[in-house]
């Protein structure tokens, strides 16, 4: 069923006319060794249906047993978000039928989340926004369906589907905000900053790989508009499973324009789920909440209640890593970055990467240079997050140490990164395979220098006559002859030596 949607309202007009309210639900896959309720591995990328057992396949008679580490991770996430930890809480069954859900109910927490009532702060364009946290609760992931026979691999038009349950039962934490108000025109950036902030936080806690492109962190974005902040909430749409920071920002932006268009046209926004299309940058309608399922939640009888001991919770709280609001100024001061430089670092999500690069022995300025210029450009070209590049902090540290040792210059270093990005191996392997060593050994250079001198007698004469800057042309010739692999400073030295002038 197709319905004609009114035109989008340009973003600036939309946010000038309406007040935006957001709600963000983030699902994060924990990086536990085993699944939430069974001992199957959570490793990514295994052969289909090789990480299943009676429990995560939902075989008759099987029973769940809760992963202790998942409980601990859930509590630590909640504490890091300033939440209270429940004295006593239960799991519930969320009942609905779907082929990728082995039991046809999801074991989740419903009205008794393990963590609730928190808040966390993000910064956008120098302004701080408090994001109120409703809850963080434990649940399990579903299997994965492959749709066969349709034109696009999408569910519609498919002939049949193939299901792999390796992912079924992987521990998930769902983090739900309360309505986020007062962001104005910055709403899309606040949404992005919040998800980026969560990603950094989860990574610093060591509880998840937070690989958005692998789906280990995905966001559902609720957006609604109202005439004024005093007005009641408008009808919301929920854009599901958005899995990159860029897309979070774009999807919120799109929905704001779309909602404004509908309201301006005097129509009513439908309460529904929406699908985000990365390629076209639009959302399309999913399931209407009016035909919403009745999930018939009830307490999961196969799992006993969770009642975290207060002493343990306090212990976990005391051992939390440094909060970002403390850590950032500390790192900035230690690195000697200006406010502007630091903002750029945060904007491209390079804080952790630089920290790790510095920890591997690189000077902060050099680490920042590589991540914010060459690598940020590459990430942007590929449309991925910086940390999704195959280049690691250790790689950057290796490359910079080669530059420092005079074995690479910046140009060659960029080629090394290119090789690593192209999957040619580690920096050392790329240097080896591509033969990217600076030619600094005099024997090899001398021949090229002699050749350049012989071919350019007029330039030589100019240099001899005192025009030292004319030597640049000779250096250029040598560099060309050595395919850029010579150490330019050494070439200049040799040239001037041969010509017989002081340098």
């Amino acid at each position, binding site marked *: 069923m197709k319905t004609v949607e009114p035109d989008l309202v340009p973003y600036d007009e939309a946010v000038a006319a309406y007040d935006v309210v957001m709600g963000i639900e983030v699902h994060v896959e924990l990086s536990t060794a085993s699944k939430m309720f069974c001992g199957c591995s959570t490793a990514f990328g295994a052969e289909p249906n090789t990480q299943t057992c*009676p429990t995560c396949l939902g*075989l*008759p*008679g099987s029973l*769940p047993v809760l992963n202790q580490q998942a409980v601990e991770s859930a509590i630590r996430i909640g504490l890091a978000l300033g939440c209270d930890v429940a004295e006593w809480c239960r799991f519930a069954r969320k009942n609905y039928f779907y082929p990728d859900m082995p*039991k046809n109910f999801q074991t989740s927490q419903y009205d008794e989340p393990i963590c609730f009532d928190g808040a966390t702060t993000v910064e956008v364009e120098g302004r701080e926004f408090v994001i109120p946290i409703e809850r963080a609760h434990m649940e399990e992931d579903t299997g994965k369906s492959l749709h066969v026979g349709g034109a696009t691999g999408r569910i519609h038009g498919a002939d049949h589907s193939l299901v792999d349950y390796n992912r079924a039962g992987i521990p998930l934490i769902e983090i739900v905000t309360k309505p986020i108000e007062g962001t104005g025109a910055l709403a899309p950036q606040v949404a992005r900053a919040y998800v980026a902030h969560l990603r950094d936080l989860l990574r610093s806690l060591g509880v998840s790989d937070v690989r958005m492109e692998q789906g280990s962190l995905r966001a559902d974005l609720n957006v609604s508009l109202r005439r004024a902040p005093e007005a009641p909430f408008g009808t919301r749409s929920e854009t599901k499973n958005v899995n990159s920071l860029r897309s979070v920002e774009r999807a919120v932006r799109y929905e704001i324009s779309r909602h404004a268009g509908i309201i301006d046209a005097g129509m009513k926004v439908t309460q529904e789920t929406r699908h985000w299309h990365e390629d076209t940058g639009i959302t399309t309608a999913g399931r209407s909440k009016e035909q919403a399922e009745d999930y*018939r939640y*009830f307490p999961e009888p196969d799992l006993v209640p969770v009642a975290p001991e207060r002493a343990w919770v306090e212990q976990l709280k005391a051992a939390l890593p440094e909060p970002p609001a403390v850590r950032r100024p500390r790192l900035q001061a230690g690195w000697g970055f200006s406010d502007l430089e630091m903002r750029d670092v945060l904007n491209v999500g390079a804080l952790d990467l630089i920290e790790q690069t510095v920890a591997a022995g690189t000077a902060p300025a050099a680490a920042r240079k590589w991540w914010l210029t060459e690598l940020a450009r590459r990430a942007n070209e590929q449309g991925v997050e910086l940390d999704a590049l195959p280049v690691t902090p250790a790689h950057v540290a290796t490359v910079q140490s080669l530059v420092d040792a005079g074995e690479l210059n910046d140009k060659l270093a960029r080629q090394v990164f290119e090789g690593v990005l192209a999957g040619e191996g580690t920096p050392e392997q790329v240097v080896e395979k591509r033969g990217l060593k600076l030619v600094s050994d005099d024997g090899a250079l001398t021949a090229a220098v002699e050749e350049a001198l012989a071919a350019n007698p007029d330039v030589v004469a100019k240099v001899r006559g005192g025009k030292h800057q004319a030597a640049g042309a000779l250096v250029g010739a040598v560099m060309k002859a050595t395919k850029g692999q010579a150490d330019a400073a050494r070439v200049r030295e040799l040239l001037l030596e041969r010509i017989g002038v002081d340098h």
Partner: protein
Amino acid sequence: MTDTTTDLVRLSATETAGVIARGEASAADVAKAHLDRIGAVDGAVHAFLHVDAEGALAAAREVDDKRARGEEQGPLAGVPLALKDVMAQRGVPTTCGSKMLEGWRPPYDSTVVTRLRAAGVVILGKTNMDEFAMGSSTEHSAYGATHNPWDLDRIPGGSGGGSAAAVAAYEAPLAIGTDTGGSIRQPAAVTGTVGVKPTYGGVSRYGLVAFSSSLDQAGPCSRTVLDAALLHEAIGGHDPRDSTSIDAPLPPVVAAAREGAQGRLDGVRVGVVRELSGEGYQPGVEQRFHEAVDLLRELGATVTEVSCPHFQYALSAYYLIAPSECSSNLARFDAMRYGLRVGDDGEHSAEEVMALTRAAGFGPEVKRRIMLGTYALSSGYYDAYYGSAQKVRTLISRDFAQAYEQVDVLVSPTTPTTAFPLGSKLEDPIAMYLNDLCTIPSNLAGGAAMSLPCGLSPDDGLPVGLQIMAPAMADDRLYRVGAAVETALADRWGGNLLTQAPELQEKA
């Protein structure tokens, strides 16, 4: 059939183990004798859905080999057992009495099966049951009803009618049942056998295909109280695969059964539940029950009447809680991963195939309960139905707690009536549900309970069961009291009640 064979099948489990341990018969001989007996009478009784002769003989030979090597073996080594078809057994058909699971062979063993194997118990096969354990007559099996060995035209009880009938018909000295609202005890009562529902969490539910997770409990079926205790001990105890399993030592059930068999019950305080008698109870059942209470007094027990005022709501609470949990537990039977698939013709969608399969694969009682539970959990009705039922559960637990302040065990008839004729209640679900009136409170509160024979009803000559109830983790009290009653009655009757059952016609 030779006399020796006849003798072997008539032995209790304890006696059978002794015969094997002493080398008077091999475990393989014992297994063969029982397989022969099944071949001879099961056509009439229909206790078994699947007989695993090969597996049984292999397990028996292993026991014999171990004995030949002089290895130490448990007290049930070589004893044959019938397994309710609701228990997963690796590679052996497990149907739960449903078309939905026809041909399904689990790729894993339930914990009960793992423990039976470790104990050297020989599993003969899988027994008939009401579909997914929902029923009180075994008539809701998709594979035809089981017949009561006392009268083949009557029901053997349910849902574990197959297990109880197998024991009563000398097809196996032991069986495993499961009890959600009385499915071990009610069949035991109407077949003149012993059945125990252990404390909830006392026996692992891992591999027990769930009907109602917060009520289901596996337990022993046998012809004697001591046999039940030995089986209880073999399968019981903590299992890390079941989150609701109790992490504490099993109560000393075998010692209690032996102590009880000494005869006296001096100092034991017995409470008669006032609410479990009166209207709706067959006079012959009440008569035998009162005689049993008199016997308890004679044995030295102090008997008082206690009141459990909320027991009158137990049946209603049960018929909301069990269907609610079942509607969710049985959702997994959807034709996607295992079991029946109907309508997969390239035209129907997954959703349609699910609905077609579930309509075709489930019988009417299962559908009734799934819809009842779906209703009780649905938004707008949850608080009134499911929520209220859970509150009643609290009230019933409080009634028990108060009663156990005054007495050690509670007693009642196990069932209001003796075995009724096959087909007589099939069209009246509510009448069928009334069978579980006395057994349900223990499931709701999680306590332990036993049924053992206390005579034949004078009005129809059919077995009557005495129910003994004990607090959670006090299962040993059941065995102490049960064994004392059993011993006294055997003296009075000149043997086990089953010796009074009519001989089944053996097929040549």
